[in-house]
């Protein structure tokens, strides 16, 4: 494909000198910003892992201490075991669920779709809290609804069981979303061919469907593995004495203020994420070739038995998710579970707990709103510059790499990196430390990649000829940007904003090390309350977060329905 500069006559290019200058400058600015927000902190983190508490270089000593301590090796094994199991279960459930929603004629698809997304609205601590009210020693299921049911089921919640169940709930929507996309497109001709060759339905599932989505499966497996490998919230609540890496970092950094050891564990934590990142890149490249112009869309064929079974399956999964969330809702309003099951608002008065009032909730909303606004603008402009500007190939490649790098960074590692980088008095940006802006910035960096990919794929759908046409009409690129690019990409832009908001509301890993005493966030107050044993108020705070996120999602859905219709009308033929 020829680039614009090759197509255009020389005189045109010269006439656009000013514009080219603006483009080059913004591209440079973008790279500098990405460097400050992502790469520089990361490099500082790596350098800190090789020094001791006094700042002297000690080589690999932190790592050798780590591997010589039996407890740490045990944590590593525990974490790997939990993450592997989680990924297997989660991908399997998500596969069946997504299959039911894309390839069968079951009823209630919309409801199932909405319920499957619910866990994304809550901090992972909430899944743990919900489980303690279900499977804990006084839990609904353990006691058989306090003896009202003829059966009860007693499992040892605190430990691997609790962590795995929480992580499955946490990672299920992520795996489901990936597989939904993989399953959405399939070539009907392949199935027809299989049928003509006499393959049974099961055989055609195994030989056509599965191979077709293998990259989606691999990618979702790695995503689930990484997410549970680096998650802190669930093991904190239901881990008991079962140590994992994320809680180790917490103990090292918060409990013992041993920053360099924390940095070492942080780097170990990053390894699977980097692996997942590499695999994901490879998969991404290969996946593109599966569909071609001659493919025919998949047609769902009726099959009663299959639909009935899968409908039951979807009901069970949805019921499990709903039950967990409803239990947390109930716990937030019950006076003293299980002795005084009367209604109370008292748990919402956070001033009597380790939560320090409602202030953390408001601070969280503020941070989330700022992250959504600033993040969406910055990310969209960033993606635009990298996608739509011609030339400066090297700069753009660096920019692209930096933009997707955060995918490989666990929040805990990013948070630590930010302390090391921004807390140096010599850093000119030191003033950000201890303000709300460092929280916004770290969230932006943490969630940048996914929003960036959303923006990039929206921009990719736009033909480069739009730019060329406006160029030949003498319209400056920024005018084309806000007159055409932004309106067409509006659905994607709003989605990015919502993604930033919801994730900033629930995240705890990156901000945990960075918040100032007067800027506590809601998920952090949940951790603190849980530490102090204030479980019911912690449930109440979780409830507030979930309701806020649901409200934001609803506003987004309602407000964008019209825009979505209008702005994508040109796509419908």
């Amino acid at each position, binding site marked *: 494909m020829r680039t614009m500069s090759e197509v255009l006559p020389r005189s045109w290019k010269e006439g656009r000198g000013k514009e080219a200058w603006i483009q080059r400058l913004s591209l440079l600015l973008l790279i500098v910003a990405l460097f400050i927000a992502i790469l520089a902190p990361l490099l500082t983190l790596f350098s800190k892992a090789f020094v001791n*508490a006094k700042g002297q270089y000690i080589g690999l000593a932190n790592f050798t201490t780590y591997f010589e301590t*039996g*407890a740490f090796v*045990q*944590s590593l094994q*525990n974490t790997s075991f939990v993450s592997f199991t989680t990924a297997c279960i989660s991908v399997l459930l998500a596969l069946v669920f997504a299959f039911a929603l894309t390839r069968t004629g079951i009823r209630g698809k919309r409801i199932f779709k909405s319920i499957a997304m619910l866990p994304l609205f809550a901090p992972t601590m909430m899944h743990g809290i919900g489980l303690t009210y279900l499977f*804990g*020693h*006084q839990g609904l299921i353990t006691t058989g609804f306090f003896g009202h049911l003829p059966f009860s089921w007693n499992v*040892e919640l*605190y*430990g*691997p069981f609790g962590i795995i169940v929480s992580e499955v709930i946490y990672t299920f929507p992520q795996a489901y979303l990936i597989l939904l996309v993989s399953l959405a497109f399939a070539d009907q001709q392949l199935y027809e061919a299989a049928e003509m060759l006499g393959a049974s339905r099961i055989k055609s599932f195994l030989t056509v469907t599965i191979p077709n989505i293998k990259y989606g499966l691999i990618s979702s497996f790695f995503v689930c593995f990484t997410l549970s490998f680096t998650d802190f919230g669930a093991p904190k609540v239901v881990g*008991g*004495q*079962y140590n994992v890496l994320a809680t180790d970092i917490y*103990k090292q950094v*918060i*409990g*013992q*203020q041993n*920053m360099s050891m924390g940095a070492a564990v942080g780097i170990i934590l990053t390894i699977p994420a980097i692996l997942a990142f590499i695999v994901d890149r490879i998969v991404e490249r290969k996946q593109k070739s599966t569909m071609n112009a001659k493919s025919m869309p998949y047609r769902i064929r009726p099959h009663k038995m299959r639909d009935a079974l899968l409908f039951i399956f979807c009901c069970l999964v949805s019921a499990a998710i709903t039950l967990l969330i409803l239990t947390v809702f109930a716990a937030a309003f019950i006076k*003293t579970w*299980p*002795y*005084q099951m009367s209604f109370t608002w008292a748990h919402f008065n956070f*001033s*009597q*707990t*380790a939560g*320090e009032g409602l202030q953390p909730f408001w601070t969280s909303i503020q941070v989330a709103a*700022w992250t959504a606004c*600033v993040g*969406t*603008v910055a990310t*969209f402009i960033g993606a635009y510059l990298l996608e739509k500007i011609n030339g400066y190939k090297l700069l753009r490649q660096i920019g692209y790499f930096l933009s997707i790098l955060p995918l490989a960074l666990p929040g805990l590692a990013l948070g630590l990196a930010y302390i090391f980088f921004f807390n140096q008095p010599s850093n000119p*940006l030191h*003033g*950000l430390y*201890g*303000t709300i*802006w460092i929280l*916004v910035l770290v969230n932006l960096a943490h969630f940048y990649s996914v929003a960036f990919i959303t923006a990039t794929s929206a921009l990719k759908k736009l033909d480069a000829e739009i730019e060329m046409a406006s160029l030949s009409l003498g319209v400056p690129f920024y005018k084309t*940007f*806000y*007159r*055409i690019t*932004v*309106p067409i990409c*509006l659905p994607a832009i709003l989605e990015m904003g919502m993604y930033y908001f919801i994730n900033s509301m629930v995240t705890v890993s990156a901000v945990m090390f960075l918040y100032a*005493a*007067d800027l506590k966030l809601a998920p952090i107050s949940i951790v*603190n309350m849980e*530490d*102090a*044993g204030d*479980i019911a108020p912690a449930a109440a705070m979780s409830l507030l977060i979930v309701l806020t996120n649901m409200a934001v999602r609803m506003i987004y859905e309602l407000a964008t329905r019209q*825009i979505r219709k*209008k*702005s994508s009308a040109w796509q419908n033929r």
Partner: protein
Amino acid sequence: MNVKKWMGLLVTVVMMVSFLAACGDSKDSKSAAASTDTGSKASASKEITVYTALEDDIIAKYLESYKSANPDVKVNIVRDSTGVITAKLLAEKDNPVADVVWGTAATSLLVLDQNGMLEPYSPKGVEKVLPEFKDNQSPTHWVGIDAWETAFAVNTVELKKKNLPIPRSYQDLLNPIYKGLIVMPNPASSGTGFLTVNGLQQLMGDDAAWKYMDKLNENMAMYVHSGSKPAKLAGTGEYPIGLSFGYRAIEEKKKGAPIEVVFPKEGSGWDVEANALVKKATIKPEAKAFLDWAISEEPMKQYNENYAIISIKNDSKTLPEGYTKDPMSQLIKVDLNKAAKNREATLAEWTKRYDAKSEPKS
């Protein structure tokens, strides 16, 4: 078509404005931060940073009388559990952030003192404080406000269901019938955990204490982050026996949890919640004034509402709520200096023995 264009323009404008506003704001806040930095040297006053391990639910109440007397001083409270606050102070040794440490374990303040991090200062009214609750040097390096002690919070309903007697002593806890029912705080993070472990050491002697804790570990369901959590877990019946401290156990009972507060027969380990001045280049007069206030009459009265044992002579003849005998007589003999000296070694040994336990006990 028009609507689309209009919306596009609107969104672009909103995005631009918010972006610029954010840039502007971050610059403002930076310059604001910078100006408070320089400003703090000129009018050093008006702002102090207080590190404390006092219970979250009582700090605001305590501070009321300070705030009404000093409305112009901004107090930044940094609250965390004893182990975390201690680690934070030690980590910031070369560049201390805190001006004052308030209501934090004396054994922790002694560790700081042994590291030369405390500025000797005798607050006004220090003579009223009983000698066992303050530093014996003059001027004092630390001054206590109250003491807190090991107590078991025992859920009577759950034990009755299981047909088990209420444990009355440390020795009782070793009974295998309580296996998996007991929770205690991790001494590395919790002050209550440390005073309990230290109490056992000073009561039994080192070797016997470790042997005892090895056996106790067999019965332990889990170790938790804070000293409050075991009482609260006992209150909800999640784990019916919690090794906690007097105030929290009594408080849970007052709130209606079906628990009995048991002070172990052998006596309770204890520690003093104490205050100290942090040694740093500029010591603010407000920091000293805060320490004066912290042992004055009004806050002392407040401390006493929550804690049975305060550091000044208590003339009241009536037993405090929740106690069946004079709380002072419940305390075992503890050498706080020795506890502080051994703190690091004790915690390292404890972590090696019990924190490494990876499999949850059933």
